């Protein structure tokens, strides 16, 4: 039970999965604009393609806390809005709509039909909606199919019927689509395999040659039942169906795609079949058959029959498939198919979904690697590409035919417009601080084949610099100002030096202005455009008010100077060195009027802030005053109570900078905040009550070691706070979650900053960095992770870092791929005709060859000015790298070597290999180069290697073995059979070794140096298909498994102590085995289902001064953290908040949150932060209700939620 655990963690996703398992096009907002909805893992995301900029923007992304298995969209007749149907693992069908006004998904219907979970016979795997929006079919992999009738009632609301069954036992479904039948009864087509015969036939023949059937299910709307209308045998290798337009648009029916064929089938038509052309080329196997893996149908506007298919093979080649119809005497198509044609179109990365937009774009949701947006140049109508027609090929799949070939070529019909970063699949990940910044970066290896990459992930906002110009001296401050109230853009840049002021004009060129009226022989404290056309310059000796060239000077009282100033459009406040505050307000005639009474402060004033004049008012009613006695005071500026103190707040250090500004809040309105930057580098944000001036709800963040300076800037029309410390930060309201976030900018450190607006750069910022003036913009808020990518050669397998130098070593291997030496050989042979240009593998992939491996080691330099791969070591002999480690051998005076484990002639399933090797490489040139020393033949490919007490520890099959480095090969020092099946991960601390088995979880072992023995002393209670492990402390280990769980295990304390006692080996050797395992069992401390498959887990620290967290990376591109709770109080609070959230914000797709997080093992010791963070998005009344239940204020809850994230993660 969770409540009894004494370890609690808070799980947060810092980067959501970037895979797209399905993408759909539709008009989800109810307007003409086309949008894309994508399912990625458990998230549903709405994307808005921007045809003008050629970009795809995320509008909304929501975690549904369930596995999204299929999505479909439909539109009721006469409506303009597409609804979304979700098939998840909830055992329920959910129909949702997008509400553009509130930017939320809204569930309209939720119908339960079966058990939850991913089960063989519970529908959810397949989903198809009738093109006219009258019905949908949801099917399971085996047996069950349910049809729901969709309609609308008198109130024009969407209704859903009770399900109609179309079950058939013993039938497996390979693919399911809805047929386009116009307004006839809805028909669904399924590609089915029947196993009943195979189950009855002991000779095994029926199982060897299963027959694939194309089956039509018709929903009779009149009788309200479903019948199996038609079925026919199709090519047994078929695996995919595509809908062919029907009704008035085409002949209806389906395309059935199998091995090297695309066949048109329909119940009342002949079959038409075309082969899939094979690639021609010197390195291609001429016998290899292709299959279609994805595709899209697109209807063109205009005449009937104007539609085409783009079908993609596993090489990524797109083929354009068209249907010709028989024409009647008038030349109109009759609906009878004449022929099917296929021709090569272009080659793009393998997609899971393709979406053709009306604006002429193609959105490609890649199966692995970056997603992309292409623009159509042409539709391949009149090119010289060979077209193959069904007339030349037999319709029988068994009949012989001559294969056809094509020559792949670079893109002709499409052009790449945008590549959208995706870390899917993420295979390994390390956290290190190599750039010398205060926070570490995440380095990971992603992608597959030639599109794999090494990525550096950094927390920050992308900044684009417009100008960086050198200045004659080093200015202390910079401002920009308009000349009149009505100007659209800034006219002057004012720079303040230690004893001078420089005024520059903004225009085509930036020039010095001499007639500005500014006093240029003194430094400046503040610049402001005042009233209609006045300008204010505040300098230590006075205030200069310039109106239409006339100058009014207000001199500072004798023997006193101005130390701080705050201004806005109507008000000016200055603080004198004596601690007095002088307040001015603009008169009706445009002149500054001094308020008679001066307020004296107890200490020296360090900073002032006025805040902008709220719209429709004459003045800002508050003044914030920061003094060096570590306080900030709020003074009233109301005429009745001018300069009266409203409230005071004590601080931990003297305030260096203040800023009053109103920002968007999570309640849907705006709130007035006082931002405070302290001398200690801490940044505080406090809510300033607009009526009473009370300061409440303070949140803080440490930004760096220098005093924090604050400036109000504007990004995308939103007021933001620019905070300058050892690096610049931007505080803003997240556009989607509406939460306030403080994110570092990926930019040089700035001394001073200000808003900047000109014709060329509407919304920028100007900053000072040493003697440089820099103008820059921030284009995208919300995406606060910056990625840098370096291309790699093959699918990466592991990532290791050089012990001292900032270099990484990746081992990479591709199965069924022609290795480079064979490629070169084939090319040399074919070069007699000399025309074959080698196509870049990044787009066309490597040539395939069965049971061949291509593998290499890459040396990556991520931090130099041009991050790149420095060197590559290819492995030959059909060896593929499987594991790697950097080991410093004590016998070599601690010199470090790169150790790479390989397997020869490996076949993955069932696991086979001929030999295993361990390669040893010496580092040269500070790790920039590798020298091969020797390799040692071993019995199995070693799946895990780690350094262990100056030697190498290798997991070879079930065996754990210690090696030392010899001259000719590695020398065996000790070994023992520890794991039940196959060692895949190893961790060590002291003499303790934690062994992860591929299936049977964790085993704790100990190395006894006295007797040179390796002994297992504790193992796991259940099977865990371990993928990665990390030691949390000496007793505990965290890990992830293939089913998407993250867990922490702890060894029993007594056994742990005993195992380390000197001389305990005798006891351990003779210890009684307990239930066929080690003598002791580990205890489960925490368990959590993440949905994504964890590929690596590490204990690390992510923010300055933050505590250690567990960071895990998932194959779908997820990066998540588990933050340990420090106090029991917090645990209780978040536990009750989580349970309230479960009740008040139930997951969109109807999955029970608690059951989802406890998918395989009941969730233990982990609180779902992703769910808790949805609190901010709740409606206000629900927030109030939960807050009431928890006996806290809404703000307090929101602060706690944001604190726990910012304290340890991004």
């Amino acid at each position, binding site marked *: 039970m969770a409540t009894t655990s004494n370890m609690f963690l808070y799980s947060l996703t810092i980067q959501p999965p970037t895979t797209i398992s399905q993408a759909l096009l539709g008009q989800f907002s109810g307007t003409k604009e086309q949008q894309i909805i994508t399912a990625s893992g458990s998230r549903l995301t709405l994307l808005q393609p921007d045809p003008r900029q050629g970009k795809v923007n995320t509008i909304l992304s929501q975690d549904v806390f369930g596995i999204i298995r299929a999505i479909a969209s439909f539109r009721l007749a006469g409506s303009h809005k597409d609804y979304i149907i979700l098939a998840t693992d909830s055992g329920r069908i959910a129909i949702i709509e997008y509400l553009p006004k509130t930017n939320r998904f809204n569930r309209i219907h939720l119908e339960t039909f079966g058990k939850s979970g991913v089960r*063989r016979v519970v529908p959810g795997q397949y989903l198809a909606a009738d093109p006219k929006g009258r019905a949908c079919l949801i099917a399971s992999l085996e047996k069950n199919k349910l049809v729901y009738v969709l309609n609308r009632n008198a109130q024009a609301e969407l209704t859903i019927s009770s399900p109609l069954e179309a079950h058939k036992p013993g039938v497996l479904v390979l693919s399911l689509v809805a047929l386009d039948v116009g307004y006839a009864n809805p028909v669904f087509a399924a590609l089915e395999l029947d196993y009943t015969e195979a189950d009855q036939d002991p000779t095994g023949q029926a199982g060897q040659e299963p027959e694939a059937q194309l089956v039509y299910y018709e929903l009779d709307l009149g009788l309200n039942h479903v019948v199996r209308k038609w079925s026919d045998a199709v090519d047994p290798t078929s695996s995919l169906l595509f809908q062919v337009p029907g009704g008035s648009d085409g002949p209806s029916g389906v395309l059935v795609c199998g091995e090297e064929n695309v066949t048109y089938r329909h119940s009342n038509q002949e079959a038409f079949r075309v082969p899939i052309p094979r690639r021609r080329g010197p390195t291609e196997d001429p016998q290899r058959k292709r299959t279609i893996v994805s595709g899209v149908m697109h209807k063109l506007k205009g005449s009937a029959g104007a539609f085409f298919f783009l079908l993609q093979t596993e090489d990524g080649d797109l083929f354009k498939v068209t249907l010709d119809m028989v024409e009647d005497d008038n030349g109109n198509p009759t609906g009878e198919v004449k022929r099917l044609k296929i021709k090569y179109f272009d080659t793009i990365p393998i997609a899971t979904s393709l979406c053709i937009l009306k604006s002429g774009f193609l959105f490609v949701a890649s199966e692995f690697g970056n997603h992309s947006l292409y623009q159509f140049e042409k539709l391949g109508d009149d090119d010289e590409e060979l077209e193959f027609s069904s007339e030349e090929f037999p319709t029988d799949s068994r009949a012989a035919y001559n294969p056809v070939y094509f020559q792949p070529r670079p893109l002709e019909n499409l052009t790449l417009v945008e590549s959208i970063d995706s870390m899917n699949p993420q295979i390994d990940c390390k956290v290190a601080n190599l750039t010398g910044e205060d926070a570490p970066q995440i380095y990971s290896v992603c992608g597959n084949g030639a599109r794999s990459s090494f990525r550096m992930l950094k927390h920050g906002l992308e900044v684009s610099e417009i100008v960086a110009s050198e200045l004659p001296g080093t200015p202390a401050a910079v401002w920009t100002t308009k000349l009149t109230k009505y100007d659209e853009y800034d006219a002057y840049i004012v720079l303040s030096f230690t004893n001078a002021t420089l005024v520059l004009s903004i225009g085509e060129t930036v020039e010095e202005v001499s007639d500005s009226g500014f006093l240029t022989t003194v430094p400046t404290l503040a610049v402001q455009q005042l009233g209609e056309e006045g300008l204010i310059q505040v300098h230590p000796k006075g205030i200069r008010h310039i109106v239409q060239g006339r100058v009014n000077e207000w001199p500072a009282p004798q023997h006193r100077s101005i130390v701080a100033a705050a201004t806005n459009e109507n008000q000016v406040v200055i603080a004198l060195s004596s601690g007095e505050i002088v307040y001015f307000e603009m008169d009706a005639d445009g002149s500054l009027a001094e308020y008679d009474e001066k307020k004296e402060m107890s200490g020296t004033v360090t900073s002032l802030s006025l805040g902008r004049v709220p719209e429709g008012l004459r003045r800002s009613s508050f003044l914030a005053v920061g003094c060096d006695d570590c306080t900030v005071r709020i003074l009233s500026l109301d005429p009745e109570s001018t300069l009266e103190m409203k409230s005071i707040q004590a601080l931990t250090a003297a305030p260096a900078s203040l800023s009053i500004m109103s920002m968007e809040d999570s309640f849907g309105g705006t709130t007035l905040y006082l931002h405070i930057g302290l001398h200690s580098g801490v940044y505080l944000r406090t809510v300033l009550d607009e009526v009473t001036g009370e300061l409440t709800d303070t949140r803080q963040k440490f930004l760096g070691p220098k005093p924090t300076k604050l400036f109000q800037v504007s990004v995308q029309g939103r007021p933001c706070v620019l905070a300058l410390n050892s690096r610049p930060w931007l505080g803003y309201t997240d556009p989607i979650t509406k939460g306030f976030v403080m994110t570092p900018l990926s930019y040089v450190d700035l001394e001073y900053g200000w808003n900047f607006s000109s014709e060329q750069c509407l919304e920028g910022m100007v900053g000072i960095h040493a003697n440089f003036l820099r103008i820059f913009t921030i284009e995208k808020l919300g995406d606060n992770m910056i990625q840098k990518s370096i291309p790699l050669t093959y699918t990466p397998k592991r990532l290791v870092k050089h012990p001292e130098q900032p270099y990484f070593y990746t081992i990479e291997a591709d199965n069924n791929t022609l290795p480079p030496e064979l490629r070169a050989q084939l090319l040399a042979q074919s070069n007699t005709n000399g025309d074959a240009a080698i196509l870049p593998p990044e787009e066309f992939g490597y040539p395939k060859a069965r049971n061949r491996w291509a593998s290499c080691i890459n040396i990556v330099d991520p931090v130099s000015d041009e991050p790149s791969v420095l060197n590559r070591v290819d492995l030959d002999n059909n060896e593929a790298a499987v594991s790697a480690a950097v080991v410093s051998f004590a016998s070599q005076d601690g010199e470090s070597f790169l150790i790479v484990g390989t397997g020869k002639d490996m076949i993955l399933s069932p696991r086979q290999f001929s030999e295993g090797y361990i390669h040893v490489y010496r580092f040269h040139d500070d790790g920039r180069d590798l020298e091969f020393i020797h390799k040692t033949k071993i019995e199995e490919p070693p799946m895990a290697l780690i350094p262990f007490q100056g030697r190498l520890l290798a997991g070879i099959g079930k065996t754990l073995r210690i090696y030392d480095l010899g001259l000719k090969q590695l020398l065996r020092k000790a070994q023992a059979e520890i794991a039940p099946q196959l060692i895949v991960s190893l961790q060590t601390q002291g003499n303790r070794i934690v062994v992860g088995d591929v299936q049977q979880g964790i085993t704790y072992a100990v190395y006894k140096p006295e007797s040179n023995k390796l002994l297992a002393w504790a193992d796991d209670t259940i099977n865990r298909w371990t993928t990665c492990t990390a030691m949390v402390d000496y007793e505990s280990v965290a890990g992830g498994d293939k089913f998407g769980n993250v867990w922490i295990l702890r060894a029993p304390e007594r056994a742990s102590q005993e195992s380390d006692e000197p001389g305990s080996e005798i006891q351990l050797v003779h210890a009684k085995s307990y239930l066929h395992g080690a003598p002791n069992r580990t205890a489960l401390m925490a368990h959590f289902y993440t949905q994504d498959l964890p590929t690596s887990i590490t204990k690390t620290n992510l923010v300055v001064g933050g505590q250690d967290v567990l960071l895990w990376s998932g194959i779908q591109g997820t990066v998540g953290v588990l933050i340990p709770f420090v106090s029991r109080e917090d645990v209780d609070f978040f536990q009750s908040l989580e349970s309230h959230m479960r009740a008040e914000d139930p997951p969109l797709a109807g999955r029970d949150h608690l059951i989802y997080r406890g998918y395989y093992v009941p969730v233990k010791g982990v609180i779902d932060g992703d769910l808790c963070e949805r609190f901010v998005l709740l409606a206000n009344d629900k927030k109030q209700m939960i807050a009431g239940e928890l006996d806290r204020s809404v703000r307090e809850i929101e602060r706690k939620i944001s604190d726990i994230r910012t304290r340890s993660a991004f």
Partner: protein
Amino acid sequence: MMRLADKLRTQQELERLQAKYIGTGHPDTTSWEWKTNINRDTYSSIVGHPPLLSYIALASNEPVTKVRAEMIRKMIQPAGPPPAREEDTIMGGHQS
């Protein structure tokens, strides 16, 4: 009498469950039936969990769609053909 009726009802209930939930066992489940059923469950679970499918696709360097179809095809006869029933072998013996 009550007992007998109860027994009958239990029996009927079990049969209903067996029809509804494929793979529900009975006292005479053979090893082949059990294995076949477990294997089919496994393959369908792999197909239903996208990360797991990606994991396999990535290792074998094949597209996910192809691996998915392959897994479904494996469900037809995952544990080999069924053992010959006695009457079948006699018949088979006659024929050969």
